[in-house]
Every structure is written in structure tokens, then in C-alpha cells.
């Protein structure tokens, strides 16, 4: 292990961003983790003070600082509410990378990021293999939510009700596509994302169906990788850069007018983190791509002219705002407009629809008790609306909300807004991936 002075030198790069925090403590009002624990180390001000303390040599415990930095959902609630405009997420991600570089990645994380995540084909094969066995090991528990739980005592699953891996992932159903637009329609690149590909392929199918219906051209290259956020939040810059490079090579911004994803986290990562943290070499392309990247609901409503007018109906739906859509990108009207455009739904808002669901990616794996406590509050608010469906534009939120609803025995389905809209369309288009042009 290098000496602490070397670590301080690395952290010095963050100094200009760290001094922006004036310790006013307003982040305590919005942090979902702090709301549960009341501990200062769990809120942004405390974490920023820890980094500052390490930098100023007030403490000499980098492991302690790393462990506390990891108790964070990276939901961005603090940044959205910060009077001084501290770049909280940027600081945390860079600090995690610096600390991981100094302390080394834990072996399990290193193996997953470097050997699996950073190699899309290997990851695909490993999970297809796993999906075969999951039938033996898991049993369905809630038909409406669509969850399963473990048949055996499995400490890793900790009683979770999980959405199982799809029997056939999206990249098998539709490996690649390149279809021209109808008339003057836009050319749209589709970035699938791991969770949509492997757990919610029906969301990607719905998105393509909608794009086809509205005459958009589709560019879906084969061999897409993860957006890199799991590696980045784990402090593994190397795997993150590898994935960014791999994806940038597939998506040439000159070939399309817009890039859409159905995953709030992927959208926010492509749009904000790729240009902020990719290497010099790829910066121009990352920036050009970020310019064109947007959420599927945003694209459909703002650029493809999907408009409401179908009329409300008797079925009650409520909307959960993913942190990476609302707080990171300011997108929250569009998913609601898309549902209104589907028709047949009455939107009944829950209390604080933009409160974090508690998922936070690896946070859920490392701190399931906390994650669950935050998720239960979300579940109570969803259930209180008396809805039949909860819609949200992020597959990670969909997983967490499914787990919480299912454990509570609720009969509430979890859907992506684009699924609701796709279901309202007439059965005119062929199956996605058929490449059939609509004329």
C-alpha cells in the first residue's frame, strides 16, 4: 500500500470542488439514507467532510472513509437541493475511484467488473447459463408483480422477491437492426442497457414497437455493453473506460439524430458521466453522443409528437420518478404525458413521487436492510394510491419496487411508461427485430 501522502496528493484534485461545500447541512432534509439513520456520515455534508479530513490529514483511515462513502444511493437528492451547488456525485465517483486505486478493489468486485461486466459477450453467456438454472432454484411468488423467490436458503438473496432473468434476453430476440425512417422521420439509435436486456426485454420490444409505429428509423448495433455505472460506482475506472470505449465505437453519432434508452440510469450515465469522466481521446465523441442522448419518454413526447388526447379512463396508475430522470435530468412531465397519450388511465399521484426508492444499484446488494427500509416507505405510498399499476422509467427502480410490493403481497403491476403506451397501439407492426419496414 502506498503511503498516505500519495493518497492526499490524489485527493488534492478534488480540493477545488470540496471547498464549495459550506457545511450548511441542508442535504439532511432530502437524503433518504440519513432519514433512516440520522448519522452525519450517511449524508453528503459528512462524506464531504470525511474527504476533506483525509485530504487535510485530520484522519488517517482511508478504509473508514471508503466504507462510509459506499453507504450512498448516488441518488443525487443532495445535489439537487444544495444551496452552494456542490458537484456531489462527481466528487463521490472520483473519490471512490481514487480510494479504490489506493486500497485496491475487493477481489469479488474486481472479478465481476474486470472479467464479466467489461466483456459483454462473456456476461451475456454467463447470465444465459444462469437463467437455465434459476427455474430449479427459484419459484414464482407473486403473479401480478411477476416476482420469484429462492426455493432454498440463500444468504445472498436475503429473502428478496426478485424479477427473474428473462428466458430469452433482448439481444437474442433482436441481435441488431438498422432500418431507415419512414419519410422524414428521425433516425434513432437504441441503447439497450443490461437490466432491460436481461430482465425486462419486453420494455425494449415495446420501445421499438412504438418507434416503428411512429415511423422512426432504428439503429441497434450488436454487441452492446453495459453503460459502466456499476464499475464506476465501485471505483473501477479501468472497466468503466473499457465499456465507454467499446460502446462509443458502436455508436457513431453521425449515424443517427437521437440516441434513446429505456433506462433512466443509462441515460444519465451516457449524458453526464461519459463526457465528464471519459479519457481525452474519446471526449469529442462522448460529448457529441451525450448531446443526442435522451430518455425514451422524453424523445417520444418532445421530438416525435406523441401527444395526449386519448382521454382518461378508469384504470388507476401512479408514477414513480427515478432519481436519474427527475433529479439528474429534470425529466418528469414526459412519462406522465406518455401515459396520458396511452389513454384509459387515471393518474393518481403518490406522496413524494420523486423520493428515491432505495435501490441505488450495488447499495441494494451491500446494504439491503437500509435499502429495504427506504423501499418500504415507497411501497406504502404506492399502495396508498389504490393503483393497479405503478409506472417508472428505470429498470433498477422496477426491480426494487417489485421486490417491495411482492413482499407486502400487493397486487400491483410494475411497468415502464413505454409499455403502457405500446399496449395502446393497434397491432400493426411486425415483431421487433423482423426488420420489416412499415409502409
Amino acid at each position, binding site marked *: 500500500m502506498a503511503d498516505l501522502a500519495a493518497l492526499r496528493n490524489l485527493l488534492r484534485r478534488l480540493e477545488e470542488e470540496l*471547498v*464549495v461545500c*459550506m*457545511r*450548511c*447541512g*441542508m442535504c*439532511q*432534509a432530502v437524503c433518504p439514507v440519513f432519514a433512516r439513520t*440520522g*448519522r*452525519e*456520515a450517511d449524508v453528503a*455534508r*459528512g462524506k464531504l*467532510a*470525511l474527504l476533506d*479530513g483525509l485530504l487535510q490529514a*485530520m*484522519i488517517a*483511515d482511508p478504509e*473508514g*472513509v471508503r*466504507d*462510509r462513502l459506499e453507504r450512498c444511493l448516488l441518488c443525487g437528492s443532495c445535489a439537487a437541493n444544495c*444551496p*452552494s*451547488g456542490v458537484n456531489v456525485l462527481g466528487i463521490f465517483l472520483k473519490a471512490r475511484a481514487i480510494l479504490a486505486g489506493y486500497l485496491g478493489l475487493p477481489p469479488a468486485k474486481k472479478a465481476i467488473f474486470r472479467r464479466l461486466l467489461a466483456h459483454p459477450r462473456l456476461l451475456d453467456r454467463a447470465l444465459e447459463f444462469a437463467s437455465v438454472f434459476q427455474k430449479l432454484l427459484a419459484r414464482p411468488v407473486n403473479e401480478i408483480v411477476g416476482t420469484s423467490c429462492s426455493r432454498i436458503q440463500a444468504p445472498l438473496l436475503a429473502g428478496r422477491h426478485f424479477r427473474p432473468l428473462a428466458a430469452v434476453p433482448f439481444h437474442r430476440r433482436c441481435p441488431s437492426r438498422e432500418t431507415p425512417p419512414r419519410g422524414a422521420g428521425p433516425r434513432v439509435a437504441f441503447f439497450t442497457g443490461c437490466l432491460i436486456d436481461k430482465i425486462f426485454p419486453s420494455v425494449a420490444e415495446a420501445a421499438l414497437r412504438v418507434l416503428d409505429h411512429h415511423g422512426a428509423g432504428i439503429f441497434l448495433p450488436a454487441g452492446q455493453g453495459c453503460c459502466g455505472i456499476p464499475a464506476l460506482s465501485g471505483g473501477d475506472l479501468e472497466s468503466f473506460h473499457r465499456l465507454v470505449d467499446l460502446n462509443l465505437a458502436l455508436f457513431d453519432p453521425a449515424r443517427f439524430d437521437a440516441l434513446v434508452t429505456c433506462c433512466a440510469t443509462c441515460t444519465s450515465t451516457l449524458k453526464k458521466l461519459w463526457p465528464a469522466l471519459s479519457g481525452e481521446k474519446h471526449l469529442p465523441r462522448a460529448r457529441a453522443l451525450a448531446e443526442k442522448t435522451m430518455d425514451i419518454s422524453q424523445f417520444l413526447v418532445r421530438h416525435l409528437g406523441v401527444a395526449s388526447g386519448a382521454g382518461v379512463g378508469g384504470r388507476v396508475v401512479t408514477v414513480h420518478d427515478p432519481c436519474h430522470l427527475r433529479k439528474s435530468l429534470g425529466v418528469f412531465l414526459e412519462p406522465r404525458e406518455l401515459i396520458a397519450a396511452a389513454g384509459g388511465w387515471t393518474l393518481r399521484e403518490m406522496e413524494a413521487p420523486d423520493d428515491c426508492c432505495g435501490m441505488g444499484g450495488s447499495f441494494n446488494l451491500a446494504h439491503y436492510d437500509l435499502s429495504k427500509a427506504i423501499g418500504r416507505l415507497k411501497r406504502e405510498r404506492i399502495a396508498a394510491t389504490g393503483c393497479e399499476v405503478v409506472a417508472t422509467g428505470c429498470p433498477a427502480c422496477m426491480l426494487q419496487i417489485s421486490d417491495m410490493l411482492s413482499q407486502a403481497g400487493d397486487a400491483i403491476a410494475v411497468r415502464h411508461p413505454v409499455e403502457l403506451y405500446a399496449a395502446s397501439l393497434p397491432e400493426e407492426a411486425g415483431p421487433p427485430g423482423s426488420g420489416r419496414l412499415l409502409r
Partner: protein
Amino acid sequence: MIPQTLIREFEARLGKEAVLAAEADRLTYAYDAAPLEPVLPGLVVRPTSGEALAAAVRLCGENGIPLTVRGAGTNLSGGTVPLPGGVVIVTNGLNRILELHEEDLYAVVEPGVVTARFAAAVQARGLFYPPDPGSQAVSTLGGNVAENAGGLRGLKYGVTRDYVMGLEFFDARGETIKTGSRTVKCATGYNLAGLLVGSEGTLGVFHRITLKLIPLPAAQQAMMAVFDRPEGASETVAAIIAARIVPATLEFMDNFTIRAIEDYSHAGLPVEAAAMLLIEVDGHPAQVAEDAARVEELCRRHGAKSLRVARDATERTKVWEARRSALSALAKLKPTLVLEDATVPRSRIPDMVRAIGEIAREYRLSIGTFGHAGDGNLHPTILTDKRDREEWGRVEQAIAAIFDRALDLGGTLSGEHGTGIAKACFLDRETTAATILYSQRIKKALDPGNILNPGKIIPAPA
């Protein structure tokens, strides 16, 4: 260093979960919102019951360890910066509203209840708890009482002190002391609550607080007046008060602050205006209409070049959003922000505004001034970078100059942020040597071991 055996003792009495001994955890309680150097405490405890709170105080007392009580750590005068190796007692685990009586107009709360949460619970019953310090979204009622916190409504509704009916607190030995009652009148025993409010944790540790509630006013009217001379605004403030009108809020913003807000939020504020007043009158609808008309008249007579009256709730929200974003807008300009709160009798507001302008020029500093002009409590806000030693020296001189000018005008060092450690050394400028000695004797009599947040408010006796 706090010995391991004592840490075990805390764990045994408070529960393991309530004791934070790791260095990394302790570091996160080394500071508050004042721009002061952090001080690493020896131990942090977070009791979740009154018994545990008393036990924590008692253990500190028995072992002669200084303790600092902390709510949300939003203090602006360093009152919650701990002593080196001392114990921090965090109260946010004691956060229950114990009683809320609509008939008797009072509530009993634990010290860790968040101010805004309490105000909302009270308002849901059609009642009103007026003190609204700027940090109310996170600040705790215990902290508000310990600091005698103010807010935007001080002018008409007073400050935290005016709402404390009674207290139950622990003395330095962990014994329960009761003062005040649930009744409107109470002439029983010493008025210890009067002594404890604003005592910044130096005389006792709050366990339960009885707070007065009042009916919610039926109507409000907000307006925004723009002036092309700063004197126009400050003279209007004095004129409104002289005309026997007491608005619920009467806020001032100078040109520097207006421009900062406009750059930050593009709210359509007049950037060329020398100053603005944001005014709200409330009460019975007829009274509100009459007061609003008279205030409007006074603004125009003192040279308001434009006046915007909020016609509905949305416009009212817009007026107050502009005011609320003042601190954020200024905070974004420089890394360090020194928010002062020297206060003058309200008729001297024009003099104080002028004095701050002179001080900014003399010490070559950026000072944005906004604040509660209606109660004489301005917030000259110095924008700086603490790492710039040379400039920081000038900042310290400017702070002293602001204090001196406020005192010359018959004012006080602090309207609502407290004395803490930041202002303790200035106390002799406002009071007398005998006053400090008197305070030291009270402290010594009530806390002979000097364990209750020592060094705050009064300089340690020689």
C-alpha cells in the same frame, strides 16, 4: 482520548448502536455551519430515549468530560463545534411530538424534532408556530431553543424565546430540572426557561420543550417594492414601523444580492434596482387590505419606482422564492460565505446599510446585504475564500468593524445566530466586565465541573 472502558460503559447504558467511536464517524461531528476550524471529538453518542440522554450526561459529569449537544449542526456561530476529545450528544434520535393540544394551544416536543416538520404538523391543525429560521428544513427545535433562533417573522411574531412555555432539562449531573408549565400564566419558581433559552448548551441539556401555538392568520398579502436609492428602501422600513403598521415580514435586499439572485435564477428581478423590499402583511382580511394599501402608499412616498402586489398564491410564492434563494445565490459566488447578523434598532437601518457599504469599500470585500430589515436584523454576507490568508485577514477586520458600527448605533452583536465561539471574544464590547463575571459565576454555580459546552458564549474565567 476516551478510555475503552468508558466507551463500553456508554455502550452498556445507551446501547451499542447509539455510540460512535470510530475516528471516521467522529470526524463528521467536528464542525457546524460556521466557517471555523473543525475540532475532532473523542466520542459521539446518539441516544433515542430520555433515560439514555440522562445517562449520557451523567457519564460525562462523573468523568469530567466536556459535552456538546448537537441537533442538526446548522449553527452559524460555532456553538456545536465540540471540545477536543469531548463528547458530542446528537439529539436527532429524540424526535417525537409528544403532545399537540388544539384547545390549550401548546405542544410538547422532544429536542430533536425538525422545525419544519413541527410547523407543518401544527399547521395541519389550523394552528401556527411562527419561528422560521433559514435552516428550518433541517434545524431541530432543541437547537432553536438553545440558540433563541429567529427567522423572517420576528418583527410581528417574535422569536423562539416568545414561544417557550416550559422546559424539562438535565443539569450537569444528569438530574431532571423542570420549569414553566402548560398554562398561559405561570409565576411559580424562578423563570429558569428564560435563562436556558439561548444558553447554547452551557447550562443544561433539553429533554422536553413545551411550545406555545397561536391561531393561523386568515389572510396574507405579499408585495415587492423596487427602489433606485438604497436609502429609499431603508427609510421606507423605518416609515412603515413609525406609521404603527407591523407587517409579518419586511425583508431587504441590496443591489449585489438582487444581481446574484437574478444571475442564478433568472426570476426577472430588476438588476438595476439599488434595493428591494419584500413585504407581507397578514391577519383579518379587512385589516390586511387596509395595511397593504397604507404600506403601498408609504413605499411610493419614499421613492419606490415600482411596486408589485401578489394577486394570488402563485405570485406570493414567487416573491418569497426570490428571498429564499438569496443565500444560495450568494453562496455560489465564492467558496466561503460569512453570514453575519449584527442587529440594530430598526429606525437605524438606513445608517447600518450605509455603514456596511462603507466597510465593504474600506476593506475591499464583496458584501451582499439582505435580511430582516423590519426587525433591524440585517445579514451582511461576506463572500471570500478562506484559503486566501490575506483576504481572510481583511474579512476578520470587517467583521469587527460591522460589530462596532452596530454597537455604536445602539444595536447588538447577534440577532439570531448566537454568540458561540465566533463572537465570545467580542462580548466585552457590548456588555461590561461585570456582566461577563456575573455570567461566569452563574455558569460556575450550575456547572462546577465545567462540562456543559465550555468555552461557548462567555470567555473562560481567568
